[in-house]
């Protein structure tokens, strides 16, 4: 059986009032992007639903890809059938037989846009219901909680029949919420924070602090690999690599041991904020989870957050580690994150960082040094990479595979 089109339902978007057009447009772009290698496919965005016209392309593959697109509530493959009652009944039966599993119940939802059609909705319900019940003795009707909802829509040009309702990835369409800078360390949490942000429609640009030779080329590679995984979600991710060695050495020299961590985070935040301004972002995203490490206590956050007024989004703030790990595994970043390379947060960790730093104290310690020129220099020398899906192999290696 060949499906003709896929019907996409929006869910949350439809409540977005004036923004709706923008949302639908972004969603249409996302859908087109995941299906970019099927040029025959047409995507039609309407006010309250979207159609993917298959034009004979394989629906299985397309269904698989649509499952990962944010902003889709649910979708259904649809059969276009000529408006001949017998043909319609036969096709409807075939559809149900295809998805039927022992014990399933069904109901019929008829919509008749073409009022010239011989049967009204009641008539359609009755005719199709009878046809299915006679041919499938083991199925029964349940109008309240059916396992199969057979939707029959009669329009002017043809009738459309569907009975599968596939759950979408929900969330908001890629990029519909604007841009945010994700502080990507290489650990388990920050990629998850990035993923959840993308799910809410944020266009994520990642920022990584790199301190050679204290951290190796491999720790950088690890972050590139993580960014590559995130790039698969929306088709591409920018990654800013900030040279951080000089600042870290300066901190070690200027700040008392138990406050170096707090100052390090404050400076990272200032640099990230400068990058955000440069690239017109609206927020900073971190993988912080309350109380997880010394820098993520409320006291620490209070002392660190003070350096910026930009909203800091912390998608994981109230989540337990186990739940974060679960997400990391589903988005396939976990195994990259646990590769055992030092990153800039672990190399310079003092033996006993303050878990309850005082804002006045850190301000006081920092007041002896002018960090601003160093921050500007770091921002200027930041390397911007654009990571595309499956791009993590160098050119000279490509032809080996």
């Amino acid at each position: 059986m060949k499906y003709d089109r896929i019907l996409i339902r929006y869910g949350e978007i439809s409540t977005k009032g004036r923004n709706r057009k923008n949302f639908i447009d972004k969603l249409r772009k996302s859908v087109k992007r995941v299906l970019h290698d099927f040029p025959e496919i047409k995507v039609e965005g309407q006010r309250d639903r979207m159609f993917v016209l298959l034009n004979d392309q394989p629906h299985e593959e397309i269904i698989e890809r649509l499952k990962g697109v944010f902003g889709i509530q649910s979708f259904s493959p649809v059969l276009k059938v000529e408006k001949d009652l017998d043909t319609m009944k036969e096709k409807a039966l075939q559809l149900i037989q295809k998805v039927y599993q022992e014990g399933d119940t069904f109901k019929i939802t008829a919509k008749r846009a073409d009022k010239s059609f011989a049967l009204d909705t009641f008539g359609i319900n009755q005719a199709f219901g009878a046809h299915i019940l006679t041919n499938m003795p083991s199925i029964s009707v349940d109008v309240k909680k059916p396992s199969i909802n057979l939707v029959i829509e009669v329009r002017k040009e043809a009738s459309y029949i569907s009975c599968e309702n596939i759950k979408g990835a929900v969330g908001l369409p890629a990029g519909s919420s604007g841009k945010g800078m994700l502080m990507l360390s290489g650990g388990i949490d920050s990629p998850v924070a990035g993923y959840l942000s993308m799910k809410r429609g944020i266009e994520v640009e990642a920022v990584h602090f790199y301190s050679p030779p204290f951290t190796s080329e491999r720790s950088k590679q690890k972050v590139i690999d993580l960014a590559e995984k995130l790039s698969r979600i929306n088709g591409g991710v920018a990654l800013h690599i900030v040279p951080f060695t000089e600042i870290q050495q300066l901190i070690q020299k200027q700040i008392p041991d138990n406050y170096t961590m707090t100052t390090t985070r404050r400076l990272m935040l200032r640099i990230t904020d400068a990058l955000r301004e440069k690239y017109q972002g609206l927020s900073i995203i971190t993988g912080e989870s309350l109380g997880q490490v010394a820098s993520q206590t409320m006291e620490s956050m209070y002392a660190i957050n003070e350096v910026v007024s930009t909203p800091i989004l912390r998608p994981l703030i109230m989540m337990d580690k186990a739940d974060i790990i679960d997400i990391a595994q589903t988005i396939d970043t976990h195994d990259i994150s646990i590769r055992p390379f030092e990153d800039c947060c672990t190399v310079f960790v003092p033996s006993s960082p303050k878990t309850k730093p005082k804002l006045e104290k850190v301000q006081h310690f920092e007041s002896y040094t002018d960090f601003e020129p160093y921050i500007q220099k770091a921002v200027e020398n930041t390397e911007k990479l654009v990571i595309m899906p499956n791009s993590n192999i160098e050119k000279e290696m490509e032809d080996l595979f």
Partner: protein
Amino acid sequence: MIYLDNSATTQPYKEVIDAFVKVSSTFFGNPSSLHGVGEKAEKLLQQARRQIAQLLKVKEKELLFTSGGTEGNNMAIKGIAKQYQHRGNHLITTTIEHPSVIETMKQLEKDGFEVTYLPVDGDGRISLDDLQVAIKEETILVSVMHVNNEIGTIQPIKAIGTLLKEYPKVFFHVDAVQSVGKVPLELYEFGIDACTMSSHKFHGLKGSGILYLRQGVSLTPLLAGGNQESELRSGTENTGGIVAMAKALRMTNDYFNSSSKLSHLMNEIRIALSEIEDVIIHTPIKETAPHILNFSVKGFKSEVFVHALEENDIYISTTSACSSKHAQASSTLLAMGIKEEIALSAVRVSLSYHTTADEVEKFIHEVKNTIFQLRKVMKA
């Protein structure tokens, strides 16, 4: 040269050898080394694993690189048997497995394991009923080959996997050395827990292979050492061989997806041979791999026939290459109930995606000719 012994080994693709040479000369670092040279090698390893995982539709961490089929089979069977022996000591396999399975089982029998060897029918296939009867409380592993290397029969792997889902304590190992790139192999869908593959059977190089180990299945390693490959297979990774294998698998997969050439050519051979008097075809028609055909020419020892064809630069095989140096009847054919005297005449042709229609035609011609010539000699 007409090489029709592709079940023994295949000719590596030229591109595969090029990749091996480049990796071995340019990216020769040890993937475990911290410096940049090591990092490049590690990157190659990761990319190879990624590509193979995509082709096999499994997760990257479910793949362990080995030295080939024999190691993979030993590792899976001994490793799972030892790891889970507290659950039971009973293993099930078939009478027609490759020696690297059969002999492993025999070793385990000496270590106190009990092994059931399932019989096969006239087509060389086990029955699900036999399997179900053989499973008991102590059973921890069932090992069944996907495609038999001597006759090409496909075992009902999917049905076995489905049956074994009812026995959550029983692991399912499949020796897929002969099936990769030749018949559909869906590791998840078939319910396979461990699966052995070997690079040189799909135009890669000897000395590299894959053991698929489903996430959640553990095993006791055969080799102690530097804990490479998720701590399950120690030894510096054979980067060149592994990259070459990733390439060979991709290319073979492309052929597999785009060509039904093998079955066409094999069909021609089958039709031609079945018209020759005194030729008995052992490979069943249905549910067999498209690249293997096993047959006997009554009255001629297999060895004689193989050498006679060799004189015309055509290379086929007696039974499996591993055992063909011993002049014994194939145990697979005997297990199928074929008389020893017929089994002693059995030969095997095995095709590759590079086999041409011309080669097949010439082969058929020479088979007829050889039989005609040998007959004259034997009668004289």
